[in-house]
């Protein structure tokens, strides 16, 4: 039995503390240990992006990170972006513009898109496609995903302008 280590991390603003084997993958920690099941396991080989979370300000694939590496980290998942009562602007835009069909890739898509819009608040269509290249969708053909993200960007920028 491998030695367990003491892990502390903040997930969606909440402090978490537990013992875990260092080899545990972050996606398994989130889903099975913390019952945060928004991030999905698609390919489990760093290709599909369904497991994308924001870790210390970076979009990462949580299937390709050991829980030990995330010790001390701040993690945000789709659950930390919006709630059923108060959807995030991106969630609203995906709903409005048909940015999903089966929905499996959507938590990863929106989590990644939230970081992309933080870095490039007013992206071109090309920048959206390039910035979302680490997330695969097998239903939509991407057209409506791109449309949703551009619409969310416009919405967020309009809200920002109105506030100023």
């Amino acid at each position, binding site marked *: 039995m*491998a*030695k367990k*280590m003491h892990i502390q991390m903040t997930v969606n603003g909440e402090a978490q503390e537990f013992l875990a*084997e*260092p*080899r545990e*993958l972050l996606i398994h920690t989130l889903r099975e240990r913390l019952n945060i099941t928004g991030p999905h396991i698609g390919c*489990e*080989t*760093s*290709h599909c*992006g369904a497991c*994308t979370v924001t870790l210390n300000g*970076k*979009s*990462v*694939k949580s299937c*390709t*990170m*050991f829980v*030990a*590496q995330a*010790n001390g980290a701040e993690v945000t998942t789709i659950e930390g972006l919006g709630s059923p009562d108060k959807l995030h602007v991106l969630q609203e835009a995906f709903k409005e513009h048909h940015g999903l069909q089966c929905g499996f890739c959507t938590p990863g898509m929106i989590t*990644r898109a939230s970081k*992309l819009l933080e870095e490039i608040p007013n992206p071109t269509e090309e920048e959206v496609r*390039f*910035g*979302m*290249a*680490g997330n695969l969708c097998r239903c939509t053909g991407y057209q409506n995903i791109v449309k949703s993200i551009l619409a969310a960007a416009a919405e967020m920028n309009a809200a920002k302008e109105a506030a100023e």
Partner: protein
Amino acid sequence: MIPAAFEYHRPTDMAGVLAVLAEHGDEARVLAGGHSLIPMMKLRMADVPHLIDLQDVDGLSGITVEGGRVRIGAMTTQSDIIGHAALAEAAPIMREASLQIADPQVRYMGTVGGNVANGDPGNDMPGLMQCLDATFLLVGPDGEREVQARGFYEAAYMTDRADDEVLVAVAFDAPSGGYAYEKQKRKIGDYATAAAAVLLGKDGDTCTSASIAMTNLSDTPVWSEAAGAALVGTSVDAAAVDAAVAAMLGDIDPTQDNRGPIEFKRHAAAVILRRAIARAWDRA
């Protein structure tokens, strides 16, 4: 996919890293961004009883451009490279190449050090470093030493780095003239079917210097001295480009895999090199 159990170390300085390496020998390996090593561990193709995470080691990341010399710390990520204005100015080929590596999530984690030290023939940085005539800085129990990128790679995953050494930085002179990094891949996130790094110097209509390196077309990166020599002194006309491509094809040794048979890879290598030379010459 659960990797075999390991003991995790997260030292905060190089002395701590070297101490674990000295104690555990080839049972220990350093972890940078982990996007080559972790997939291998998950597939149980790599067994690492002692994993040394470098994320808290001071002084391993950062880019400096001083007096025409570029130094990039091993833990600097592809994403850091893409966002660094002074580096984009001094060596734009670094940004051009980094934008073609994997996808955004991987580029936040993937590091220069991991990319050059792992010795994977599919990685883009080794060929690029050979094109730039870079120097690698290694630290081991006997102190620091420097190795030329062009002499570092021995075979797939076999390099001049000893088990008890850590690659801590790469350095090179900021290149002048035209540049291009051209890469053919089947899809985003895939390794190259063929990639070419090209640097060309130009005086009037004459090519004054040329450096050409190819990626994923042998079990090591291939810096083709003969391909460069075929361009120097010419006006990079069609005959000179043909000669450079022929010379490059004489230096690579691709193998058949799921990216295609040998003939296809040689064809792709020629196309990619022609495009890279044309773009570099146009920019020179």
